[in-house]
């Protein structure tokens, strides 16, 4: 027994008793189950395990603090109606927005932030971290940290472009099909069914094996594979709007299809479509990362998170966590977008689970 272990349990038990005394049910449950779990962990893993629990708890508390302040920051900055929605947002949404904001900064200002260029060989292969290189060097002696920063621009940028293209195609076709109906609607529906019945990773592998892997084909292939999902959603959301009276009125006024889509249907179906954009981005981003990991996505020497994991994977067998950092960067952004989408879906549907 040393002071750390005694302090650790004393703090946990003390705070959970306080929570129980002040009738904070949630906090008490959380803290007390943490106490029980750390009893088991302390027995199994010893002091080291308790340290990792402490560090983890500290990290969670830190990110909760950051998300809280970022949310308050947005509440102050945003115009009144958005600020009202922001004020009731859960902390997870604040966290998600903060992460997205950070990635955007990293991606946009990559050349300024990164100390070295993405393809600059500055050291020997797998050199350990020193005062010049925050995270050490990769398999060719390039600065890992700079490449991760550039990856925010390349990987996320490509996924974003592909999502925008998929969205433009899917949403336009979906809303158009909903407005026009009839044969075209049926036909598009069948085409979409077929594309969606092929697993997306397999389909993209097939197409990439044929058209080769350059950035433009990659974006087009991914957009074609993911457009059907957007089409389905846009079709069903649009279908609900098309039967409204104001659409009928607009039709009687003699408005054309494009006017109907742009001015009447789109504004009334934007909420679910925006949420879908976030979800779609997650799917596309994971697919791009997966393809790059397989060596079929963004080609070297462009820095890209998926291929960085693959190229440095050998380090893992020496117990190094460096190759996991780009993978964690992928996971973190996807989680963040999902948090925000969850919140938006909750707001737009007014879905209140009992």
């Amino acid at each position: 027994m040393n002071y750390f272990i005694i302090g650790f349990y004393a703090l946990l038990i003390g705070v959970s008793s306080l929570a129980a005394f002040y009738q904070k049910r949630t906090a008490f449950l959380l803290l007390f189950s943490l106490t029980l779990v750390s009893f088991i962990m302390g027995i199994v893993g010893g002091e080291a395990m308790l340290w990792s629990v402490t560090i983890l708890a500290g990290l969670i508390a830190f990110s909760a603090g950051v998300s809280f302040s970022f949310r308050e920051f947005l509440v102050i900055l945003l115009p009144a109606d958005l600020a009202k929605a922001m004020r009731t947002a859960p902390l997870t949404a604040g966290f998600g927005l903060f992460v997205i904001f950070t990635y955007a900064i990293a991606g946009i200002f990559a050349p300024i932030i990164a100390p070295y260029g993405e393809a600059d060989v500055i050291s020997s292969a797998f050199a350990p971290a020193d005062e010049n290189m925050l995270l050490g060097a990769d398999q060719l002696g390039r600065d890992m940290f700079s490449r991760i920063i550039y990856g925010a621009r390349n990987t996320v940028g490509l996924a974003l472009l592909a999502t925008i293209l998929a969205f433009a195609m899917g949403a336009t076709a979906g809303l158009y099909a909903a407005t026009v109906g009839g044969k075209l609607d049926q036909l598009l529906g069948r085409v979409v069914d077929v594309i969606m019945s092929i697993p997306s990773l397999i389909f993209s592998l097939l197409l990439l094996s044929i058209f080769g892997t350059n950035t433009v084909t990659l974006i087009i292939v991914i957009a074609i594979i993911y457009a059907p999902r957007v089409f389905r959603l846009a079709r069903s959301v649009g279908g609900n709007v098309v039967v409204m009276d104001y659409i009928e009125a607009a039709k009687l006024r003699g408005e054309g299809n494009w006017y109907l889509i742009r001015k009447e249907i789109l504004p009334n179906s934007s909420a679910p479509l925006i949420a879908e954009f976030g979800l779609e981005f997650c799917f596309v981003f994971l697919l791009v990362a997966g393809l790059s990991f397989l060596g079929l996505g963004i080609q070297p020497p462009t820095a890209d998170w998926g291929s960085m994991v693959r190229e440095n994977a050998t380090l893992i067998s020496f117990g190094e966590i460096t190759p996991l950092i780009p993978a964690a960067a992928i996971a973190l952004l996807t989680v963040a977008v999902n948090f925000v989408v969850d919140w938006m879906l909750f707001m737009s549907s007014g879905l209140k689970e009992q």
Partner: protein
Amino acid sequence: MGDILSIVSKRLGLGVVTLLVISIIIFGAVELLPGDIAQAVLGQGATEENLAAMREQLGLDRAAPIRYFEWLGNAVTGDFGRSLVSQQPVSEAISTRFANTLFLALYAAFIAVPVAIFLGVLVALYRNTVFDRVANVVTLTSISSPEFFLGYILILFLSVQTGYFPAIAKIDDGMSLIDKLDRTFLPALTMVLVVVAHMMRMTRASIINLLASPYVEMARLKGVPAWKVIVKHTLPNAWAPVINVVALNLAYLITGVVLVEVVFVYPGIGQLLVDAVTKRDFPVVQACCLIFAATFILLNLAADVGSILTNPRLRHPK
């Protein structure tokens, strides 16, 4: 009962048609190559004789529809032609690897399905408590992580640092089942993590959906305890969506296996596909894609048929 047979057979027929259309896409995609297969494989520097010989060997002089039907007919009987790289019959390479992939997917499914349904019911029971929130965040994180991230984390902690399990899942036919299960534990666990998260969320959603029904309210007003409401009144009605969820996730398992196989160097069909794509070995790519697509469609069909069979309302459509 005649009704239900006709619904199911209609669904099956639709599945066969979809599969046919997909086989056309898979075959036709290769036809879209700039030039033709021979040119794509041999490259710019190929001589006219080489090109002609290759075209002769692949039978490229005949019209595409004829070759399509030949290819399809052979594929149905299990003959996928010869690999362009190794000149071995494709079916030889595929059969053992496909068995390996199925083994891995089934292994993962056997762990994942019971755990996911149990946990899904549990979080539905304790919905909107702290545990539900924590489960929500944890499952969301697990879904959002690329498979290779989870895989490498498991390798780092369970293999490199502690040495509990092997990091490389090399298996062969001579090994005993126990050995195989031990070797493939980490890849299976990786897939379990992703699939459990998916299934748990979907099970929770479908049970909570049902909790809004009048008969649940009735049961509650009678004073039935909360867990009994779920186990006796909700779960039997939730089977249709749950079966759907399970089948959809099995379909995901079969295709999500590609990345996991590459991480753990597992000799499955996914790795074969990735290798073939890098080497532009089109007969192998076509065969693998066809098998993946067929399995995917089959499991989706199973999901549909399962939910028709378990739901009386779908058995008698208006």
